[in-house]
């Protein structure tokens, strides 16, 4: 990923592939919605997946061709690439409950 990328790796890496979370956050520039979404996502990951996640932020303003691959329509969108299956959450992630359900994090707990 050449995009502006935020990496958060835990200090005690658990190398099981299932445990490694790969998230993509699609935004279009630094809009309030995008910033809120990023903050919400980060907060959630920190509390639930500390050390085993990676968030890739993709700015479609700079890389519009990437929108097609993940069928992005809504902004912001979070796509969980790993673990499988792929999950998609749209919105600024202000409703934590929905995000947790959407990312299967309730079950992961």
């Amino acid at each position, binding site marked *: 990923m050449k995009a502006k990328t935020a990496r958060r790796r835990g200090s005690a890496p658990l190398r099981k592939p299932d445990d490694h979370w790969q998230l993509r956050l699609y935004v*279009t520039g630094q809009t309030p919605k995008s910033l809120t979404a990023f903050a919400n996502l980060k907060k959630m990951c920190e509390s639930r997946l500390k050390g085993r996640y990676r968030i890739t932020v993709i700015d479609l*303003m700079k890389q519009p061709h990437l929108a097609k691959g993940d069928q992005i329509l809504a902004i912001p969108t979070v796509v969980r690439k790993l673990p499988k299956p792929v999950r998609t959450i749209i919105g600024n992630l202000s409703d934590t409950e929905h995000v947790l359900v*959407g990312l299967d994090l309730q079950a992961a707990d």
Partner: protein
Amino acid sequence: MRNNGHTHSPPATQLPKCPTGIQGLDEITGGGLPRGRPTLVCGGAGCGKTLLATEFLVRGAAQFGEAGVFMAFEETEAELKANVASLGFDLAGLVRRKKIAIDYVHIERSEVQESGEYDLEGLFVRLNHAIDSIGAKRVVLDTLEALFASLPNEAILRAELRRLFRWLKDKGVTAVITAERGREQLTRHGLEEYVSDCVILLDHRVNEQIATRHLRVVKYRGTLHGTNEFPFLIGDEGISVLPITSLGLNHKISSERIATGIPRLDAMLGGRGFFRGSSILLTGTPGTGKTIVAANFAQAACKRGERTLFFSFEESPNQIIRNMQSIGLRLDPLVKRGLLRFHAARPSLYGLEMHLATMFKEIVNFQPQVVIIDPITSLMDAGTDSECRGMVTRLVDYLKAGQVTTLFTSLTQGGHALQQSEAAMSSLMDSWLLLQDLEGNGERNRVLYVLKARGMAHSNQVREFLISNRGIDLVDAYIGPNGVLTGSARAAQGALEKAAVLASQQEAARRTRELERKRVAIERQISGLRSEYETEALELRRVDEQVGTRTLMLTTERAASGLLRHADAKVAPGRRNQPKPGRRN
């Protein structure tokens, strides 16, 4: 962007148009869709929305050099390509040459979780990217409404759609947005609320087991447009809309006349036959010889070296050829020489529009100067009355525009020669011949007359129409006290009249002889009288002479006697005579 190439004469303020290249649609809309604005195409399932949108893009790219973006919400790129390939659209090739970009947008609702606020900026980004990547001027969104099923928040969606249409206008692309037909409104989700420049409604109806698609321009801001429902069909060259009055009444007119193949009929039509490029209706009850007249006309045209296209909806070509041979009309050499072509089809084979389309295609391929449709009434069974009238109008328009002389035969039922539908159809026709059966005297005879022939002095007489193994002949029919006499009655009347003529001739001769005799008698009488008169005159003269002589003798006598008596005075001779009457003798 005003199109100067088109020679329409509307006011200078006309909206710039974006030609679709779809046959007929540009005529209805007066040049195409509004350029730089979105157009809504709505209709139920299977109406051809996607096809219309695709054709708009493909023709734009191939014919008008305008690249286009197809944003598909329902079908994948591969499906789209395969679907339109059967219509001869090389979508894949255009995509390869970067004339068309296809973006398949798909969201599975079950895989999407909503949390908090969002917008559809992603859609805008994708569309913008696709447009910019190929420099597109045209955009299709097919079917945008699929988003309503994919995205749970309708309020956001509506707000974003409004923004999308605004954005498309700002972008300056000509967009076609397809939508499903709604129950009480034009579209299921009320998209017409956002797209207000041009709305086209497609419809697919089944009438008497025959399905016909219709197109109607519901609204077109700032432009005059045909508001009627126009039938359209999807053929192997895409959509063709068939506007009823596509050409108006401004055909080129020829004053050239062409023979009918029946000399006496030519004579009835001012002596020189039909006008070239006119439309002729030939009505008749069953078995009155319509096809024969048509075949004669065809043969006459072929003999002049003109190509003739014979649409037969009742008989197969071979049957017509065989039957015509029985009256001495050989058509097969003309077929072999390529001057005459038959096109036979059962009327119920397909709908009226499809018939019309195939006929148009045949006409375009063969380029005939004469077209015969035998009979047009068979086609009428394939549609409703008004549809048929529309179809005939279009056909007449089309053929007239090409200066093609057309003969329509029309079958009427029973004894009534004039049916309602014929009367309606006849107003489109320039000439109208009527073939009729007359029954009487235990026989059935055919008569022909010219009901109307625009622009020429034509005979008002009923002619008997004879079919023999040497062909057709028209003979004068006798008008008797009981109407027109035909067949043996005509022959009998002929004999009767001949006898009468002979009798009157004999009578005249007799009278002449009588008169002569009288003249001779009178002359004889005159000469008798004259001789009598002459006799008397002669006698009178003799008497006169005698009297003169006697008077002279008397005078002389008296003078002598006076001399003798020595008369002193002269005596008046009268007085002197009286006393001596006895001296006479």
